[in-house]
């Protein structure tokens, strides 16, 4: 401990540092014990794998092969899951769809979590009028059915690119994260080492991000994982009804096509939907597993 001021590397910092070390290994061990959580992680990783390998599995996913349309799965060696009504390889469509799915949910998640964390931190830390205003905004935004807001916003755009979808998803989903962060910070704010940091003259931003935030990480991580599951649902829902980027292969769009050819090619809708289901399940299981591992309140015993 050098001669620095308390707020940086002094009591508060190293205490938190040592504390975090022990906590990480404990939580990791608890996480492995939860079979569900591990299964979830496996599912997510499998799809990520498929997404990465998409160009290998099917280098030309948009290629229409009218001659081989409507092949049922397992009938032909090169089309493991069959083809759709335009002769496209279903497995390829699923892999490429996984790509866009991950792109959307990771970006949207990152953005909405950032917004949510910052606003939640600021609201809880400063309290008073700032807090009231932010809460009011959150409450009002929550009154408007989220899906419809997104519908409204996305359909406004002339060119619906992936970016548009990501941004609208993010902008209308930060509220839940904010609330969680806010309640976590409210309880951390009163702890002694935060007061010590403030007394030693650390700036507000420093306190918020270096001292308070690391200790509010657990609920943030949990809700991020669960939110990602929601994002998949929303994004596939949007593309299912036809919004979104028409040039991007998306699971929702594929399910829609499957729906329209339900009688003749039921496998298209079934398998693509199964993919959505499994990935969503993966995130939900992961979120549950994380929650069980992280939730036992921070105790030093």
């Amino acid at each position, binding site marked *: 401990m050098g001669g620095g001021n308390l707020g940086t590397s002094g009591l508060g910092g190293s205490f938190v540092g040592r504390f975090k070390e022990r906590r990480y290994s404990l939580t990791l061990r608890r996480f492995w014990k939860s079979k*569900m959580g591990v299964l979830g992680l496996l599912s997510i990783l499998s799809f990520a794998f498929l997404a990465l390998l998409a160009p290998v599995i099917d280098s030309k996913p948009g290629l229409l092969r009218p001659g081989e349309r409507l092949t049922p799965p397992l009938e032909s060696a090169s089309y493991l899951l069959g083809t759709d009504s335009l002769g496209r390889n279903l497995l390829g469509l699923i892999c490429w769809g996984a790509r866009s799915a991950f792109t959307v949910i990771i970006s949207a998640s990152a953005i909405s979590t950032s917004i949510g964390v910052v606003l939640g931190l600021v609201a809880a830390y400063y309290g008073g009028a700032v807090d009231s205003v932010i809460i*009011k905004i959150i*409450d*009002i*935004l*929550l*009154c*408007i*059915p*989220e*899906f*419809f*807001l997104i*519908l*409204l*916003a*996305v*359909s*406004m*755009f*002339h060119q619906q690119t992936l970016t548009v979808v990501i941004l609208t998803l993010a902008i209308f989903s930060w509220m839940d994260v904010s609330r969680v962060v806010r309640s976590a910070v409210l309880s951390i704010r009163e702890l002694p080492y935060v007061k010590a940091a403030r007394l030693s003259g650390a700036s507000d931003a420093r306190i918020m991000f270096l001292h308070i935030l690391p200790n509010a990480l657990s609920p943030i991580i949990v809700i991020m994982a669960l939110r990602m*599951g929601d994002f*998949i*649902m*929303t994004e*596939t*829902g949007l593309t*299912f*009804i*036809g*919004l979104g980027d028409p040039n991007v292969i998306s699971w929702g769009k594929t*399910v829609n096509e*499957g*729906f329209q050819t*339900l*009688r003749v090619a*039921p496998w298209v*809708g*079934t398998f693509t*939907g*199964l993919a*959505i*289901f499994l990935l*969503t*399940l993966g995130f*939900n*299981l992961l979120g*549950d597993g994380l929650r069980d591992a992280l939730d036992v309140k921070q105790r030093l015993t």
Partner: protein
Amino acid sequence: MNLREFVIRRLALAVPIFFLAVTLIFVILHSVPGDPISMIVAEMRYYGASRQQIEALKAYYGLDKPIWEQYLMWISHVLQGNFGYSIPMHAPVMDLIGPALLNTFILIGPAFAISALLSIYLGVVCATRQYSKTDNLASFFSLFTWSMPGFWTSIMVLLVFSLYLGWFPSSGMQTPGFTGTPLEMFTDRLSHLALPLFVNVAGSLAMNFRLVRSCMLEVLREDYIVTARSKGLRERIVVYKHALRNALLPVVTSLALGVRWIFMGSTLIEFVFTWPGIGRLTLQAAVGRDYPLLMGATSVLTIVTILSNLIADVLYAIIDPRVRY
């Protein structure tokens, strides 16, 4: 302390909230890059609107007036329930929204009730038998069901029960052109309702069940439960009278907050089953760039959400006397 005062005060609060929400919709509409109003006009032209109709549209939106005047016009339109005219569908917006909303409620209402009752019952049973086979099975299943995207479940159910087994019709609210005795007509409607109702219930059951279960578990650990048992009360009374009422508090709040999700889920289900509800109407509006209809539907649904929050708060106050001050 008085329940009536509480309700009145809460109602009064709902009004400014509604205005703020509606303002927000207006703001969103006008903050999207690329002037949407002229896009509207362009779309209308595309649908072959006559000159008069376009002029009427321009007047309705006050396109030539400054923005704050447009805002006032929007507010007054909302208050009058006049959301303009939908050119693609050739009808005033309110005329379309009314019946569609009703149809959605026919679907959502029973779904909500069944889901709530079932989830409370299952939640209590599993909480009182934690870690038993029943509990583990139910918890696992609920996680499963929760992760299923509504539109996919709908398609699967449609595939199996309608297309393959032929037990249920695959679309609409009733067989077109069907007439018969009232009983026959009622049965016909019921058979059309069955599948979408099932999917709706399945979707929301999972979440509610888990919530009830976790709330019950927490409440059953409270001290006043020990007190109740120490009075010699039967376990059933302890659980259903003392514990459940306290556990329902967060459940009620959560159910109210979940209204937003209910509408989303129902929207996609309506799409798959071609159920003429407000969800499907909104989807058509979104895809068809029918902005008057879209804005009208969103505003109406906002009212519904605010109302359901209000009802939830009042219910909460009825259940928990600590809140009524």
